[in-house]
């Protein structure tokens, strides 16, 4: 039986990818950010997941306004890095796990979550930056990845509750997959940031830290948080954090906090990072 072994949360700031791609990781501004992901790489090396499900959002790369799926599950064998205007990031092609992805689609749709199945998709920084943060810059990514793209660009995104419930359904799907696989689920995006309009630059560390506490402890309050509160308190684009609740939903009610890191800023954004494991029983 496959099982979810950990939830891994992190921001996916494009400038982090640019710093990696342009060899700037040793500059003082960036060492502050990357220092928070050194221990992470050791933890991931020890965890050795067989598959990662990465919950992220596309930023007008794969999806224009022509088609806007709320939840899109990547079922392809591979996902090339998207050209976001400066050429594709020089990172490995992301290999999928079509068999597990197909099983998840079959299971969660019958579980009443009407996913969009995507068999051809390029992936942008939203997915590849977290892979760099967890695994560094290897020649090939260490394991297959199943992308789950969530619409958080066109308002309204799915509610936090819907995201959490989908995470629970994904867990049921994974646990009904016959092969023994260790699966890690990533929640990405955020934390507080606003990159649009006259209020751009908003950062709310108090909100972010409370959100991390909620994920690590009792998430019921953040599950119920309305969209307007994310936008008012954590910036218009801070609403990306609803995606973290998909990953939290795939875990036990009680979890152990394995690792946490928080710093401000990376470019326009607060960087948060958390690794949760199910509590020992």
């Amino acid at each position, binding site marked *: 039986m496959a099982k979810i072994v950990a939830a891994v949360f992190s921001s996916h700031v494009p400038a982090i990818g640019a710093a990696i791609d342009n060899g700037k990781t040793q500059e003082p501004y960036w060492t502050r950010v990357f220092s928070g992901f050194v221990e992470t790489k050791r933890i991931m090396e020890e965890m050795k997941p067989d598959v990662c499900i990465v919950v992220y959002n596309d*930023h*007008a790369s794969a999806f*224009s*306004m022509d088609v806007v799926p709320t939840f899109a599950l990547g079922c392809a064998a591979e996902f090339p890095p998207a050209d976001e*205007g400066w050429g594709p990031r020089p990172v490995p092609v992301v290999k999928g796990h079509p068999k597990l992805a197909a099983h998840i689609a079959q299971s969660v749709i019958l579980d009443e979550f009407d996913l969009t199945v995507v068999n051809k998709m390029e992936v942008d920084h939203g997915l590849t930056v977290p892979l760099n943060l967890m695994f560094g810059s290897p020649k090939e990514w260490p394991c297959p990845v199943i992308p789950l793209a969530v619409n958080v660009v066109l*308002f309204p995104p799915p509610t936090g509750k819907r995201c959490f419930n989908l995470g629970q359904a994904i867990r049921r799907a994974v646990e009904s997959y016959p092969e023994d696989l260790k699966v890690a689920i990533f929640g990405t995006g955020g934390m507080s940031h606003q990159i649009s*309009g006259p*209020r*751009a630059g908003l*950062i709310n560390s108090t909100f972010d830290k409370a959100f991390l506490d909620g994920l690590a402890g009792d998430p019921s309050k953040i599950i119920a948080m309305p969209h307007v509160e994310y936008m008012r308190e954590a910036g218009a684009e801070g609403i990306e954090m609803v995606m973290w609740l998909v990953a939290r939903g795939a875990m036990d009610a009680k979890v152990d906090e394995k690792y946490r890191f928080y710093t401000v800023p990376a470019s326009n954004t607060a960087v948060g990072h958390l690794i949760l494991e199910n509590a020992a029983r």
Partner: protein
Amino acid sequence: MTDAKKEYDDIPGTFVFDQERSRQGYGVNAFCMTLMKDENRKAFRANESAYLDQFGLTPEQKESILKRQWNRMLELGGNIYFTAKLAATDGLSFQQVAAIMTGATQQEYADMMLAGGRNPNGNRSKAEWSKK
């Protein structure tokens, strides 16, 4: 019929890209999407006004693009991830555009971010902004 009042309309300095804005701004965002291709960027630069005529824009939308009114584009239904492609076409960094939208110089904006960003206090409601 008047539009229903939305709670998030009270967030100051913010244009929430909702269904209504998206409906109005489809052409703006469709235009920006074409800038992913170099041949289109060249055609746009060669004759901006003629290039824009392909997208069924309102006169206000077209003017906002020609004049690079970044906030106005958002107000008229553009979305930041799309208008960022126009900024990139112009050779502007994201932080430069952010600074323009906030009315700060790039240095002032960068300094604000390094100092921890814009504090939410005083920035939660339009009433708070009107006192400034």
